[in-house]
């Protein structure tokens, strides 16, 4: 009795441990009539539907129909096909993929944290208000700022918020400058945010040492400059040593200085953006303060500002009321809210728990070790890879595969893909744009010396392999759940839903 496709739903049991078995989509596993659902018995009467008859959908939404058992197996198998920090090193430059301590999950899971409705009156959320208030004070102390909004749900949202604060500042002075200066090494969110804030991005070229040169900058600074956006260390992992002079120059035309906090992991407890002269600072709590990245989010991008900008901050801020309790406060000249509620609150709580766990000394040590790890790893591989900027780096560094490409035809991408075959996540490639065949490597402080040594060994091994066997690298990875993808095909005729797939 041959058995072939006797039931809808396809093959349900794939084989994650042997790798390279495709997992059907949940829709392919779906079988009419099956369900995992069971609902609470509430005894609320069934209510007639006639009042909304005219608005009803003719057919139920085609959601999957699966048993809980099949549901669990499917998403467990999907998880088994994904690399993550929990599994191993993830030296993705600019992303700060550090270990996320486990206890923070318990913070996030507390009933009195995760179960609170944002519309609860102030006397029912005193705990949350205190979390907000303490976190704001931590962020201000770390960045050297006066006040902060916790609303922006990610770094990019923080950037746009910061730029709108910049706008509000200039407006308040009756000015309307149009330009925001951005180095050529900047992250893509910077210019995109500038545009969305209604400004024009003006590119500042990096000097031969990878840094912004004060002289070069002077040419660009005029009365039409609303401000500058910088990260420091910059995206090459280099500290802008002339930062004080740079920002004085911008301030000299009443421009404001925005600090992109994506690289804060290099400097906590060592040097503060406020002391460098910055006026607006966003922090990526999902980078520096170890809230997990969630496969791409959620994050949190609080924006802290100097005193002179505090009156423009979005409400609601947690502040002490007349009776000593905490309450919500909206600054008089607030630019208005930038989130439907109060930001990614639970992410904020996680970040504060991490700060308290490390404490003042521990936070400084965190940055010191992040910088140590990056420099050590750089020194280990510098005979194998071209390092375009050789000075001491901060928490990350950029290597280049340009010479390897020229000699053996092996690209940065091939190195990255091959590193996955070695059991590591790939570094960031082709960013920043100013370095050819860039490999941007950020080990973070949480990787141990032996992991760094293993990573270096693999990188060196791949550079050696490139010499005689470029085709091996070009074909990598071979043993991952899938091999290299046809990305052009995906873009040519996009298939973004199951319906487009089958339709």
């Amino acid at each position, binding site marked *: 009795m041959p058995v072939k496709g006797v039931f809808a739903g396809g093959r349900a049991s794939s084989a994650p441990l042997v790798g390279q078995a495709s997992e059907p989509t949940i829709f392919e596993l779906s079988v009419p009539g099956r369900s*995992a659902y069971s609902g609470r018995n509430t005894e*609320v009467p069934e209510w007639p539907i006639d009042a909304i008859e005219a608005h009803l959908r003719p057919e*139920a939404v085609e959601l999957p129909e699966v048993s809980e058992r099949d549901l669990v197996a499917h998403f467990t198998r999907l998880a088994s096909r994904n690399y993550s920090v929990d599994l191993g090193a993830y030296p993705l430059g600019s992303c700060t993929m550090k270990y996320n301590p486990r206890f923070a999950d318990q913070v996030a899971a507390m009933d009195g944290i995760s179960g609170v409705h944002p519309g609860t009156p102030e006397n029912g959320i005193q705990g949350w208000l205190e979390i907000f208030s303490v976190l704001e004070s931590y962020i201000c102390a770390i960045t050297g700022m006066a006040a902060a909004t916790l609303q922006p*749900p990610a770094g990019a949202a923080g950037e746009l918020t910061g730029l709108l604060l910049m706008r509000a500042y200039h407006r308040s002075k009756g000015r309307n400058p149009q330009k925001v200066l951005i180095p050529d090494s900047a992250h*893509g969110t910077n210019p995109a945010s500038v545009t969305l804030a209604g400004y024009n991005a003006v590119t500042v070229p990096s000097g031969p040492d990878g840094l912004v040169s004060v002289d070069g900058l002077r040419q660009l600074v005029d009365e039409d400059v609303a401000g500058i956006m910088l990260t420091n260390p910059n995206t090459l992992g280099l500290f802008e040593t002339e930062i*004080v002079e740079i920002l004085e120059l911008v301030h000299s035309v009443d421009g404001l200085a925005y600090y992109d906090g994506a690289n804060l992991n290099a400097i906590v407890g060592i040097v503060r953006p406020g002391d460098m002269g910055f006026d607006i600072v966003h922090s990526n709590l999902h980078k520096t303060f170890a809230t997990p990245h969630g496969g791409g989010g959620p994050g949190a991008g609080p924006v802290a500002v100097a005193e002179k900008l505090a009156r423009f901050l979005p409400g609601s801020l947690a502040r002490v009321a007349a009776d000593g309790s905490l309450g919500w406060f909206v600054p008089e000249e607030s630019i208005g809210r930038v989130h439907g509620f109060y930001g990614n609150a639970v992410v904020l709580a996680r970040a504060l728990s991490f700060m308290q766990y490390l404490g003042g000394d521990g936070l400084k040590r965190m940055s010191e070790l992040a910088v*140590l790890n990056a420099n050590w790893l750089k020194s280990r591989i510098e005979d194998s890879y071209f390092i375009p900027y050789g000075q001491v780096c901060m928490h990350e560094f950029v290597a280049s595969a340009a010479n390897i490409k020229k000699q053996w035809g092996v690209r940065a991408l091939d190195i990255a893909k091959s590193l996955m075959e070695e059991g590591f996540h790939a570094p960031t490639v082709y960013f920043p744009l100013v370095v050819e065949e860039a490999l941007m490597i950020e080990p973070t402080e949480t990787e141990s010396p032996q992991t760094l040594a293993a990573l270096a060994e693999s990188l060196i091994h791949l550079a050696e392999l490139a010499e005689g066997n470029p085709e091996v690298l070009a074909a990598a990875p071979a043993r991952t759940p899938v091999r*290299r993808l046809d990305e052009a095909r995906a873009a040519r005729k996009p298939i973004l839903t199951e319906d487009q797939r089958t339709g």
Partner: protein
Amino acid sequence: MLGDLGMASLDDLFAHVPPGIKLQQPLPFDPGKSEFDVLEWFSGMAKRNLAARRDLVIFAGGGAYDHDISAAARSLGSQGAFVTAYTPYQPEVSQGVLEAVFEYQTMVARIFGTDVANASLYDGAAALVEAVNLAVGVTGRNRVLVSGGINPAYLETLATFGAGRSLTLEIAVTNNREATEWEAAAGAAAAVVVGYPNYFGTIEDLSQARAVADSLGALLVVVADPIALAMLEAPGSLGADIVVGEGQALGIPLSFGGPYLGLFGASSRYLRHIPGRLVGETVDADGRVAFVTTLRTREQDIRREKATSNVCTNQTLMAIQAAIHLSWLGKSGFREVSRKCYNSAHYLASLLESLGLTVTSAPFFREFVVELPVPAQKVRDRLLGQGFLAGLGLKGRPNHLLLTATEVHTREEIDSFSDLIAKEI
């Protein structure tokens, strides 16, 4: 390791940082604590909040709803492989996240009745902002006609971000059944924005909104409640160009307002203008089906100042959790939850009406406005002390309350709530 670098101390690593700006004193924080001490501090904070079910029966919605969340969604959504991964830039080792997001996109598109959906945005408010930005981008106009029935927090967010692009927002007022009155508008506009059901619970007439949009040459942007859409006709089928909404109700805890989930679906006409990430199907070098982020040229990391949006980090984990919870609900469970919300809300409304109160929203789905003979704030305060979050107040309408009820509410809870309201009026 320092020795390998020829350094004597960690300070040497920072020798190139100008001494003048170096922090001279330690950070003014307590020394590090054990995880147990930190947890104890947070559990102290948690006790000073009123939590759903533990302390409060919640009849408040307004974009954040108390729903039951399946244990399966909670546990599968919190697997380390999803939680501690980055954006799936390397698809060879990210098929788990990618396939889950592909499934999520499919579910959102089906619920919204749109051709496609993206991989998530920050929240409902951000999704609305992005939708308007899209409309502004494709029409080249900056005038937007917005229903006054939109969530006021979304409206405020739109206004905040609109300042950057110099948007002109015109508000269409709502009438005595909390539905939008579209004045005979004239002139070109980028978008017409309407809620469905709207913030006040009323199921708006989308065909009318579509007609208004057509008359202005504008895109129709609908802000929808996905739970209602389990029963209501999909906005995409009713002519919406873009549908957005808050996805918290799809298996995300109340979380004091975040992290939530911005839903975004659109007609494929606007495919190359969609903000945020999109996951698509393709094949690998061996011809096996696989998934990858696609149409990346829209995104900020490639297009920079000309990108359709600045979004980078989004809410992927919430999207995955929603996909899991929606799969747990399934075709029939999704409808049943929706129907139960409808039942609970209507049962509650009928009890209040039998107390002589007026429910103004009509027709409504699972949320409604009720007018009280006394200040709403006083009633909310008094009921909070008795274990009920009695809805939300409405700006400028001191005697009105916005109430909701869901599948978690028992008949007994609704009855007690109504009895307590009776005592206050």
